């Protein structure tokens, strides 16, 4: 198959499956009328993901072997599938497929299951599409479409006050961010008369208006990326969404915001050294994320704050790459992006499995507290084992995947030979140790305490929920031992980052 067609179908398949998933689920649910029949929506969604995987393979193989982006023009819209798009599409596809598998038993008791899967497919399709956008306005359209599907998924438990509150907060903050992005686009449009960065990038000068546009992009996309003063929606949305969606939000949605930000700043690369700004936000994100996570009592909120910290690690790698031309840092940043999708996906799904067994299966929507995990290993050995691997990998314990990508970022920072960067490398190392201060007690609690009453009364966890956990844990361990396995993914992405910034 032609790689160009593969890219078009890679985006189109999930989007075209949205109505099919909904209708299949709706018609069967209406006809059956009771909860004993299995809703086919999830199987249709899974089939669509597998078809998408074939197209991803064809497109990805072309990009990974030649390192050349696949460019194409549909009507007047230019799409380009490069290394960054590949990292994003691969992470989204992998995590999306496993989340659909996991959500089968998790969402079984919920009303309107088919809506869940069709919105999820819409989110997956728009995220893959966002990676390929070249034009600034086109980028905004994908971004907004992704945001809309995620608003509805965050507030999916529409009878729960807490979910509604999280949804409202998320919607208002993101919508303001998206207006700021629009204003940034207006400013660029005014200066250049076009929206295609390939046309205008090279002749831009550091005009103050364009620096303002860049600042608007950073703030606007920064809301979705959870840059620190703009992160307040994140713990609420991540903790209140259904666990599969928490995994998607934390694993790929905030990273999609990051990639959108990189693309928009790449258009303005001649205007200012944006890498330094990213490094500053990186330091703040690491510290605030870790400190806030330390004092959380709810497990999902804890993991949500840890996403803020991990966003800081990614920003550091990418910022170093942009301001010092270290392609190592870019590769490390994208490696960490992919690893974070796996590790945080694993952690949220593992916690979700326990939340389901201990609370949701009994119709109780209260949050999973840290104390509820006491002695969970006795009753749920596989879930707890995989969850512990995920948590320790997030904390950066060797030889797990999280250590390898953090290490690569640290090396890139040290290689700059810049005093400030080396100070930040030490700071990041200390932060990583600090983060063990909340991951390790969770593992300790699950293995080394007497089971609490709530664990003893817990419901069983289905194998369909355990399977994605085992696969993700396996990936985390294998990448820890053989990090070079992902070079095909991270090298083209690093190259594409420099191309995005016109270097």
């Amino acid at each position: 198959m032609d790689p160009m067609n593969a890219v078009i179908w890679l985006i189109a398949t999930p989007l075209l499956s949205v109505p099919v998933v909904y209708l299949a689920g709706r018609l069967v649910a209406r006809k059956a009328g009771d909860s004993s029949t299995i809703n086919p929506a999830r199987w249709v969604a899974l089939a669509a993901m597998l078809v998408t995987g074939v197209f991803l393979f064809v497109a990805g193989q072309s990009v990974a072997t030649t390192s050349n982006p696949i460019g194409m023009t549909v009507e007047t819209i230019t799409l380009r599938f490069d290394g960054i798009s590949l990292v994003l599409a691969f992470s989204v596809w992998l995590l999306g497929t496993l989340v659909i598998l996991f959500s089968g038993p998790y969402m079984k008791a919920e009303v309107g299951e088919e809506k869940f899967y069709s919105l999820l497919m819409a989110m997956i399709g728009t995220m893959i599409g966002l990676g390929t956008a070249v034009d600034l306005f086109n980028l905004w359209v994908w971004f907004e479409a992704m945001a809309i599907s995620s608003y509805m998924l965050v507030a999916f438990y529409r009878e729960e006050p807490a979910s509604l509150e999280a949804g409202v907060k998320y919607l208002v903050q993101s919508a303001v961010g998206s207006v700021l992005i629009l204003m940034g686009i207006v400013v660029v449009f005014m200066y250049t008369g076009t929206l295609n960065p390939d046309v205008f990038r090279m002749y831009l000068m550091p005009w103050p208006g364009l620096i303002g546009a860049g600042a608007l992009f950073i703030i606007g996309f920064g809301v979705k990326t959870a840059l620190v003063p703009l992160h307040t929606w994140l713990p609420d949305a991540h903790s209140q969404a259904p666990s599969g969606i928490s995994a998607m939000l934390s694993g790929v949605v905030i990273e999609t915001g990051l990639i959108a930000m990189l693309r928009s700043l790449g258009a303005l690369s001649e205007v200012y050294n944006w890498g330094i700004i990213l490094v500053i936000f990186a330091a703040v994100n690491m510290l605030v994320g870790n400190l806030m996570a330390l004092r959380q009592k709810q497990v999902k909120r804890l993991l949500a704050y840890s996403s803020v910290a991990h966003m800081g690690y990614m920003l550091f790698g990418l910022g170093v790459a942009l301001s010092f031309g270290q392609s190592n840092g870019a590769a490390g940043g994208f490696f960490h992006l992919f690893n974070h999708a796996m590790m945080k996906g694993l952690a949220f799904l593992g916690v979700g499995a326990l939340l389901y067994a201990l609370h949701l299966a009994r119709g109780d929507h209260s949050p999973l507290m840290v104390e509820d995990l006491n002695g969970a290993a006795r009753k749920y050995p596989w879930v707890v084992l995989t969850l512990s691997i995920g948590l320790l990998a997030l904390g950066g314990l060797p030889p797990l995947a999280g250590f390898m990508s953090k290490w690569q970022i640290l090396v890139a920072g040290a290689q700059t030979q810049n005093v400030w960067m080396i100070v930040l490398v030490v700071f990041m190392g200390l932060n990583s140790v600090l983060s063990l201060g909340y991951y390790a007690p969770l593992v300790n609690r699950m293995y080394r305490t007497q089971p609490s009453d709530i664990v003893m009364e817990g419901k069983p966890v289905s194998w369909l929920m355990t399977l994605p956990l085992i696969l993700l844990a396996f990936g985390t361990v294998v990448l820890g031992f053989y990090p070079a396995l992902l070079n095909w993914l991270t090298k083209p992405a690093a190259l594409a980052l420099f191309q995005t910034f016109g270097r």
Partner: protein
Amino acid sequence: MSMNVPSVFLIVVIGLLGVGLYALLTVRNLIKVVVALQILVKGAMLAFVLVGRLTGQVNLGQSLALTVIVADTIVAVVGLTLAVQVRRKFGSLDIKDLTTLKR
């Protein structure tokens, strides 16, 4: 004294953005928050039309504005849907009453 069309547009754009931002910071009713967001986006939309005219690409500017209308209407619909549900569950539309997650 006569003003040319672009400067009138510019004043309206700035006015809409200012009113929207001010309203967003001050109003507490959830429906009014959605309206404030709408006012902000209308400002951005008008700015697209204005810049399209200034750069001599009237069609492009207007088509961008139309796309913004489509995307933004959906955001408004979702926002109002949440508002209806908030009114049902909290018995109030005041955003100060949304405190289940505050800590």
